[in-house]
Each structure stands twice: as C-alpha cells, then as structure tokens.
C-alpha cells in the first residue's frame, strides 16, 4: 500500500497515493480534465495544453499531466480562467482543422468532436484560409489526412515505445508540422496501433475507409483468433457483416490495452469472404464431385459412413482431429465425440508442436502479459515474438524500455528484439536445446558453448543475470525446443534455486490462439499425433473426422494420405487442401459467428462472443459435432448451448474447475486457469538425452547473420490472411504505388498465383 498524501482539489480534501499524477488524481476523484496528448503508459508530451489547471504557489496555469501530486497541494480545476484557456485551445485546434466530419471515418467517435462539444464555442472566429494538405495513403492499411491532425503525437510515441519501429514521425515545423513517414511509404509491421490511438481522423484504417460510420456498428468484445497472445478486441459489425476490428478500450487496461497487430486488426475480412463455404458438400462416390446438399442429408451421409467404418473396423479405426484454432467448446465436443460416440483413442489436434512435456513438468506459474511488462529479467530461448506473438514482443519491449528489465535472448537469428536485449547470445541454427542444457546444468556449459558457437562466458553471464534478479524472471521459449528441452525448461527454476524476492514465471510461445486450450482439454493426449495419424491413413485409420484443416507442414510429403482413407469428413471455413480431399464438408462458423472460449499462452481463458449470425448455412463446430453425434445415436447433452459445454469442461478438466461463463465476463480482469504445478522433478534422463543430442550438433554450421525483414512472418499469406487483398500487397513486398493519393489496391495488380510459402500457424 503506497503512502497517502492530501491534495485539495477545488476546495475539497482528497487522499491520493504518493507519486500519483495530478491528472489521474483529479479524474479518479470525479473532476473531468480534458486532454489529447496525455496517454497513460506513454511518455509525457504536455503539448495539447488542454489539461491546464491552477495550482497555488505556481506561476501560470500548469499542465496537470506533468505534475506529480505533493502533500498539501491546492488545485483548482474549474474556474473562469481555466475555462477560457481550454476554450482557447479548442479554438486553436479547430483553426486549421477541416470541418469535414461528414466524410471522416472518425466522425462519431472522435475525441476532438467530443472535446468541441464540451469546450467549443458556437461561433468560429477563425475566418481565414485553412492550411491544406491532401488525404493520402501511408501503406495499404493506413490512410492519413494530415489536415485533421492535432499533433498530440500519440501515434509517434506508440510507434516508438510499443513497437520500437519509429516508422512515423513528425516532419516540418510550426503550423506546417505533419505526421508522416520516412520516404513517404510506411515500411513497418503495419500494426495499425497508430490508428487506434489517434484521437482524430488523421490516421485511418484503410480497409474500413468510407465503409460505414461508428454508430452504425454493433460492437462485440471478443478474442483474436490468430496467435497465442489472445488479444481482446472489439468486432464492429453491421447487418451480418464484420466491418472492422479495433482494440477494446480507449485507455490502457485489461489484457492488451489498445494494442493489436496487423492480423488482429486487418485480417478480419475472411469472415465475410465470398469463398466461404455456403452449404454442406457431399461426395457420394470416391473420385466423384462435391455436390451441395442440405444439412440433414450431409449429416445422415456422414453418420452412415462413419457407422459403416465403425461396424467394419471398430471405433478405433476412426481418427478425430481438432484444431488449436477452434474454441475450447468445439474441441471438447470433438473429444467427447471421439471418446463417447466412437470410442476411439486416435484423437489429436492439428497443432505445430505439443506442449505436453512442458505442462507435465511445469514448476512455476505461467507469466501473464502483465507479468511480462513488469518483469525484471526476461529470458527468451528461440522464438520470434515480434513476428509470431506481437503482443508479447510489445510487452517485452516495454518491460525493457519503460520498466528497466533486462532481456537475455538466445536465438539463432538476430531478431529485431535484440536491440532491446541486455545480452544477445547468437547461437547456431538448431542448437536451442543446447542452450537449455547449458542453463540447467552449468557443468555442460563449456561444451555447449563450443557447439553453440558462442564464448564460454556468455552463458555464464546470462545465468548470472538470472540469478542476480530481484523480482520476476520470465522464461520464454519458442517452438524450436524438443520435448526433452521443454521438460527441462519447465524445471529450470529449480536449477537456480530459491532466492528472496525472486519469482520465476514461464511463458511458452505456441503459435495458435488456442494452443494451450487444446493441450489443457487433453485433445493432444490421444494415441497418435497428427503426423502419425496421416501416416496411418488407410491402414490403422480408415476414416477421419477433421475440424479445421491439417497444417501445410503436416501434409508436406504426405500428399496422398488423405485419399487413402475410406471416409473423410471435414468442417472448415474454406475449401482448403484438407477439405478438397473430403467426402463430406460441413461449413463451419468462424470466430466472429460463434460463442466460446480461447485459452491463450498466459493460460487466460477468454470469451469469444458471437458478433454476427453464422454466414450462409454455416454452423459452429461444436453444433456440427453434436448433430453428428445425435445422428450416430448419442446425445452429448450440450442442449445447443456453448455455456453447457463449458460447464462440461469445468467438470471434466481439473484446471478449469469452477469456471463458468459469467466469471469470464469482465475482460479487464482476465481469469487464469489453474495449471497443476509439478514439484521438483528428476530430469536427469532428459538432460542425458539433451547431452546425447548435443554431441551430434554440427560445430561448423553457419550462423544466420541477417536480421529478417519486418513482417516476414506477419505478412505471409495463410488460409485466412490470403482472403485480404491488402495482405497480398504486403506479402509482395509492400510496393509503393505511383500515387499515394489513391489506395494502392486500385493501382497495383498482383499476380494471383503469387502464394508465398505457408505462414507459421496456418
């Protein structure tokens, strides 16, 4: 509990925490103070001059955003003088602001508009000619109208402090200052956070440009369906169409505050894409055509086929494959379907790597993103959060820049985050396991160092940083680690022992929105993993029921596997490679059309809420599974309600015990599942295995010296992102169009056959 001091605001005494900022203290105590440039969690700016207050014993009016409360401070926030000053500032801001609210996409949710309602005068005294600058595009996804700018510079601060990119900056001087880019075209990760924080219509979402108006949208708070960070977002929809996605809150709180990345913010058009499957499709004869049909017929046919296989080869000849993209509810329905309806143990999820060994040996709690932001030491082994888990990347960056945390990176690639690193250990490709070994058993450090291609004391120094930390240590690891290394990482805190004031937190970096969820539910604990299931197709596995598709990585080299099956039922959004081989395809509902939960890499269970009715004839995955179960004669008991399934999960999965939808209602207070913590485990077997693997490492392997370009993973075209035209431009290297006045979409035609390599996590 911080010390309390007395502050007198407008003649009333208030107790505020020592060191509180005056503007916050006033606002918390019910005195509204206008401001544009003040933005919690960003560097102070004090340039809009809206938050002026009178403080006794200080000359002139003071900006309350820069003042720290002191004991006995006497503050006036409401007086004639202050009102005059505020009205004056609004008048100044409006002087060169074009009053084109009717065509401005921000109109209706514009902070300047609100401020003018509060502090504007009825008459405009500025009758001179306004400074003019044309509206232009900064990138395929960011539009810019610099006339509307009030130069609060939230965008430049966000770009610098959150993203570490410094892609936009102010140029020019005085009244001709404009926010712009270096070279006129934005070559950044296109996160769009500058758009999010912009209080006016200066920076705009180019994908949503001139589409509708904010008050026409119905807003649904939901969870992002891309990476494992699980950002909370607000889906704006209108008449069954998702129009835009923005971060949830105007001021920083909750899980991700106002942060979203390019995928979360701009990749939503896949929801209403014309290529979405419209009706169930059935292929009655192998080698025949897929024909559209009714739900009744498709379910009947699928049930009949599954029954045939079950009768002929037994239930265990049928495999069930879930997906880390789907909600916990859908995956649970699949699991129940596999166990209770088919009686098979061949269930899995189309996940890139399994976290099972990690969770089995988990010896410390999972770090939430808030923990990462306030950690004192962050160790990152492998992975590339700024591309694969952008929120994690941002939190790490802020922990270092604003929180003074020390970042230690072990990576074979000089990733961009290394600029923030206190220590960057540049290892040989594929040697991440050796790092784990060296950290866990210092005796092996020297040998490992030579295999890693680093100086012997580099690992020692890293270990020293960890052991000297007073505060939180977050251990993060990417998908490069082997099962043994995962187990050792999970037990790494034990290797460093106990120390007063130090707490270890673990943070895996899986690729999908519900990777942790599929693990928690036990869907990954089936007899076979996805690769083994594909290998067994046609022999042990005669039929498959797949929700979502296999990853391109799974199918690579196993192209014929799916056609060897007697029967394949797939539920999907699009006609993917997996779906094309199917005998029955059910059109599934996307995240925007269904209710459910995702569990992110923090172990936070977050609600996915239905924002639009399912498009065409699609249905939520769990509803399809449930219908299929009924057709096979078993009622799974879900009563067509996702909350019933979640209740079932809460009863069936210990980590989710006691959780209910109403408990997950407030996304500013996220709920973490209770993963069982294993005590100290003996990992000598795993260490021995790591030692064996160490020996086979190539000591002469070339190191990767080039920092990969921004967006090399983010801009890749996957099943979902390829449905967004802007991503095609970005994937093609974000070419600068001839004219920045018109959207590049209208100017640049790309080769439609241009599909890059598959995106990680797609």
């Amino acid at each position, binding site marked *: 509990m911080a010390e309390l001091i007395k502050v007198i605001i407008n003649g009333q005494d208030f107790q505020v925490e020592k060191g509180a900022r005056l503007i916050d203290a006033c606002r918390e105590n019910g005195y509204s103070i206008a401001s544009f440039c003040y933005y919690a969690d960003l560097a*102070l700016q*004090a*340039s*809009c*001059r*809206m938050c*002026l207050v009178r403080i006794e014993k200080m000359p*002139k*009016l003071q900006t309350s955003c*820069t003042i720290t409360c002191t004991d006995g401070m006497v503050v006036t926030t409401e007086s004639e003088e202050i009102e*005059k*000053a505020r009205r*004056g*500032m609004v*008048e*100044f*801001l409006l*002087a*060169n602001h074009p009053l084109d609210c009717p065509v401005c996409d921000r109109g209706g949710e514009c902070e300047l508009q609100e401020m003018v309602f509060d502090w504007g005068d009825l008459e405009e*005294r*500025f*009758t*001179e*000619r*306004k*400074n003019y600058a044309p509206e232009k595009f900064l990138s395929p996804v960011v539009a810019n109208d610099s006339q509307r700018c*009030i*130069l609060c510079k939230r965008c430049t601060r966000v770009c610098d402090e959150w993203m570490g990119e410094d892609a936009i*900056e*102010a140029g*020019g*001087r*005085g*009244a*001709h*200052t404009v926010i712009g880019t270096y070279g006129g075209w934005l070559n950044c990760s296109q996160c769009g956070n500058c758009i999010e924080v912009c209080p006016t219509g200066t920076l705009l979402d180019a994908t949503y440009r001139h589409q509708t108006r904010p008050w026409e949208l119905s807003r649904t708070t939901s969870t992002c369906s891309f990476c494992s960070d699980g950002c909370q977002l607000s889906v704006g929809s209108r008449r069954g169409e998702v129009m835009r996605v923005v971060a949830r809150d105007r001021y920083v709180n909750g899980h991700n505050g106002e942060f979203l990345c390019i995928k979360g913010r701009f990749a939503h058009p896949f929801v209403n894409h014309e290529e979405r499957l419209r009706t169930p499709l059935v292929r009655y004869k192998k080698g025949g055509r897929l024909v559209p049909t009714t739900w009744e017929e498709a379910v009947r046919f699928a049930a009949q086929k599954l029954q045939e296989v079950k009768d002929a080869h037994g239930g265990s000849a049928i495999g069930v494959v879930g997906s880390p993209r789907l909600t916990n509810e859908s995956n649970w329905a699949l699991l129940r379907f596999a166990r209770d309806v088919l009686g098979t143990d061949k269930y899995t999820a189309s996940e890139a790597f399994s976290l099972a060994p990690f969770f089995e040996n988990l010896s410390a709690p999972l770090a939430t993103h808030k923990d990462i932001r306030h950690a004192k030491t962050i160790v990152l082994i492998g992975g590339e959060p700024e591309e694969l888990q952008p929120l994690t990347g941002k939190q790490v960056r802020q922990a270092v820049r604003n929180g003074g945390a020390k970042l230690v990176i072990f990576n074979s690639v000089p990733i961009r985050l290394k600029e923030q690193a206190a220590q960057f250990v540049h290892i040989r490709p594929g040697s991440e396991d050796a790092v784990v070994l060296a950290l866990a058993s210092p005796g092996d450090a020297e040998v490992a160092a030579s295999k890693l291609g680093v100086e012997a004391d580099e690992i020692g120094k890293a270990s020293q940083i960890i052991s000297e930390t007073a505060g939180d240590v977050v251990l993060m690891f990417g998908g490069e680690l082997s099962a043994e290394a995962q187990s050792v990482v999970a037990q790494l805190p034990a290797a460093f022992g106990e120390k007063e004031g130090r707490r270890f937190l673990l943070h895996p970096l899986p690729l999908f929105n519900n990777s942790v969820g599929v693990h928690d539910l036990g869907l990954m604990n089936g007899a076979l993993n996805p690769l083994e299931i594909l290998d067994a197709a046609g022999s042990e596995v005669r039929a498959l029921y797949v929700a979502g598709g296999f990853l391109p990585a799974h199918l690579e080299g196993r192209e014929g596997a799916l056609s060897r099956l007697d029967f394949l039922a797939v539920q999907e959004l699009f006609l993917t490679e997996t779906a094309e081989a199917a005998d029955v395809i059910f059109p599934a509902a996307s995240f925007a059309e269904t209710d459910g939960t995702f569990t992110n890499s923090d172990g936070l269970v977050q609600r996915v809420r239905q924002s639009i009715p399912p498009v065409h004839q699609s249905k939520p995955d769990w509803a399809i599974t449930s219908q299929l179960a009924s057709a096979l004669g078993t009622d799974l008991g879900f009563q067509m309600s996702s909350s019933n399934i979640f209740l079932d999960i809460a009863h069936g999965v210990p980590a989710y015990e006691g959780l209910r939808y109403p408990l997950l209602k407030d996304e500013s207070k996220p709920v973490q599942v209770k993963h069982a913590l294993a005590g100290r485990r003996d990992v000598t077997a795993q260490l021995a295995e790591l030692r064996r693997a160490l020996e086979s490492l190539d000591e002469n392997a070339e190191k990767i010296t080039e920092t990969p370009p921004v967006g090399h993973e983010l801009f890749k075209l996957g099943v979902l992102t390829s449905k967004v035209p802007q991503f095609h431009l970005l994937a093609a290297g974000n070419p600068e169009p001839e004219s920045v006045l018109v959207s590049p979409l209208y100017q640049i035609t790309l080769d439609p056959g241009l599909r890059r390599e598959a995106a990680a996590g797609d």
Partner: protein
Amino acid sequence: MFIGAIGCEPLQLRRVSLERSRTLDVYRRNGGYEALRKVLDGMSPDDVIGEVKKSALRGRGGAGFPTGMKWSFVPKDSPKARYVVCNADESEPGTFKDRYLMERDPHLLIEGMLIAGYALGARVNYIYTRGEYRYLIEIMDEALEEARTAGLLGDRVLGTDFNCEIYTHTGAGAYICGEETALLNSLEGLRGHPRMKPPFPAVAGLYGCPTVVNNVETLTAVPDIIKMGGDAYKALGTEKSGGTKLWSVSGHVARPGVYELPMGYDDMEKFIMEDCQGITNGRQLKAVIPGGSSVYIMPAEDIIGRDVRMDYEGLVAAGSMVGSGGFIVLDDTVDVFESTKNLTEFYKHESCGWCTPCREGTDWLVKVFKRIESGGGRPDDAQLLLDIVDNIEGKSFCPLGDAAAWPIQSAIKKFPEDFRRHISNGASGDGGKEGLPTA
C-alpha cells in the same frame, strides 16, 4: 559601426578592436588565460562558483537568471558525467553581440568555458551555434586547435590534473534551438523541440546528465569575474545585476554597434541621443525595442525625459525587459503595425509546432495580419488579435509563445493608431480576399 564600452572600462570588448584579436598570441598578451591559471592554481570549484555568485552575474541570454545560482543547482554527488554547453544560437532578431565576441575574441569564450567546466566538474563541453553561424565554427575550431596545441585544452590543462575538451556543433537554423532544452535535443541529434521542465538541465540535461547551458556573453564574463573578483565585478553594476552588459544597437540610429554599458546605465534617452549619436536623418524617435524582438515595445514618450535606467529592474519598471540586449531603435517613419506583422511572421516561421497555442496561434495571427494588410480589416480585429495573444501567453510549452505574444500586446496598447488605420481604411490591396476562406 561602433564596438566598445561607454561609461566604463571595456571588459568583454577589451580586445575586439585589436589587430589579429582572435589569435592566442594577442589574447595571451592582453591578459588572456590568466583567470584560468588563477583558478587552476588553487581555487576549488566551490570557490569559483562562490565568486560567480558574489558577482551577481545574471544570464545574458534573455531570461536573466542568476548564473551562480544556476551553477550551484548541479548536483555535486551525481555519478553521471556533467556538461557545460555554450548557447551560441543567437537568433533573436536584433541581437548580434555573441557573434562579435566569438568572431573577434574566441579565446575569451574558451577560457570562460574551461573555468565553468572546472567549477562544475565537466570534462566535455559543447559550443552550439545557430546554423547560419557556420563560419564562426571555423573560427572557433581554429582557436580551439590553437588552445589545444598550447596545452590549454584537452588532457592536463596547463599541466594540472584538470582535463577538459570543447567541441563545436551547429544547429540547422531554428530559432527554437536557442531555448536551452531544445538546444540539448538538437545537440543529441533529435528534433529541436523543447523538453519538459522539470527536470531542469542542471539535473538532467544533455544525455540525461547534469548540464549547464549558458549564453556566450555569460561565459565570457566569467574570466573577468575571476580576475577582478566577484565583488569588484558586481560593483561595476547594480546590487541585483552585476557587471557590464553588451547591447546590440541597430535600427534608425546614427551609430549602431555593440555597446558595453555598465548595468544600471543612466539613462536610455542619453544613450540613444548622445552615445548612439541620435536618430538618423534628424528624424524623431518613435519607439525602442530594447531587448530583442520578444520584449515589449517602448514608445518614445516612455523614454524621453523618463530617466530610464538600463538594467533588469529599470527596464521592467519602464514597461519592458533587458532580454538579450538587442536594442532596436525605430524612428517616426516606422509603421508599428507593419513591424509587428514582420515579427509575428518570424515567430510563426520559427514556432516548432510542439504545443497547440504557439503552433496554431502564431499561424492565425499572421493570417489576421495579412488580411488586415490587404485591406480586409474588420472593426473587432484588434480585439481578436489581443484575444489570440491572450490565449497564447502563459499557456505555451516554452517561452516562444510568450515571446510571440508580448510584442503584439504592447504594440496594440502603445500604438493603437497604427493598427486602427490599417484596420479601418482597407486602403491598399484586394479588399481582403486574400485572407478570406473559400467555399
């Protein structure tokens, strides 16, 4: 063009008229580096600061903050590096004294900086000049090289344990970089925006380290203070502001130039009419802007027969300020409306764009001035100008806003007739179409 002292022995201008005054040789022969020797030979840093405090030297850049006090704000126990930065970004319209000091007596500045560096424990000092003074950098660099060769700069200054290096740096031509924090930003390679105060540069300045930013004239006063002692220096001036002050006299006077006057020189009328040899072509004095363009304009009736004392207090009492000592004399042919418009255009051009009132306010002011000038004046325009100015003054991030506001405030107040004439007659121009909005 006159360069010299009136009413006292020349101190800072002692050598400027000598042949080859900028060489080390001439400087040393005329008492140069004696003060540095004296400091290094037995004065502690605290002694030096004490002498400067005693001298009642006030910052000559414009704000007039006591220099000794500023120096004593630098934390003694900070483990960080300390810097002395010389503000040679002399951009105030009407001010050109620093230029002469650096051009003709660069070693005086170097000596002053070395003493300041010694007093404050700074090992690296910077001279930051405005972009237009690039040729001065060459002179300074030459002098620095000379000093370095002579063992006066760098490691082991004059054979003592004191190490001090001085570097030069130019801005890119922005008035705002004369503001000390904007100067530091510019020096660090950032945009020339002022920084938030507090923390003041004395605590967290250049690269976050304690930094003292002083004007050229302030630093060049230091060697004499050391040589003659703080008390003797103070005795030259008044109780509250010691020593002498350089005035850059320009405008409609018969003899413009850089004048070194003791603080508290009596009186302004005598100074203009006798020392500067009166107004050119026998015309009448109309007004004086005594301290660089940002201060209140003084009409002739506030000067003639008013016995205006030329020091900080005297000018405040007379309704203006010493500022940077840019003494601009205007005769009766000057239209104060036009001259104010000119100044406002300068401030609009130089506003950095950081804060709302200064950025938008100066832009608006210029637009109103232009509209009035082109004949589109409206009856309430003077009031509008005053309202805009009122909304800028005291509300801007840095003093540039105030600097833009004061000349207009005083001009409208003191010379309402000039404004009224322009606003009401709409004589010349296109009837104000230029300034009017289009549909």
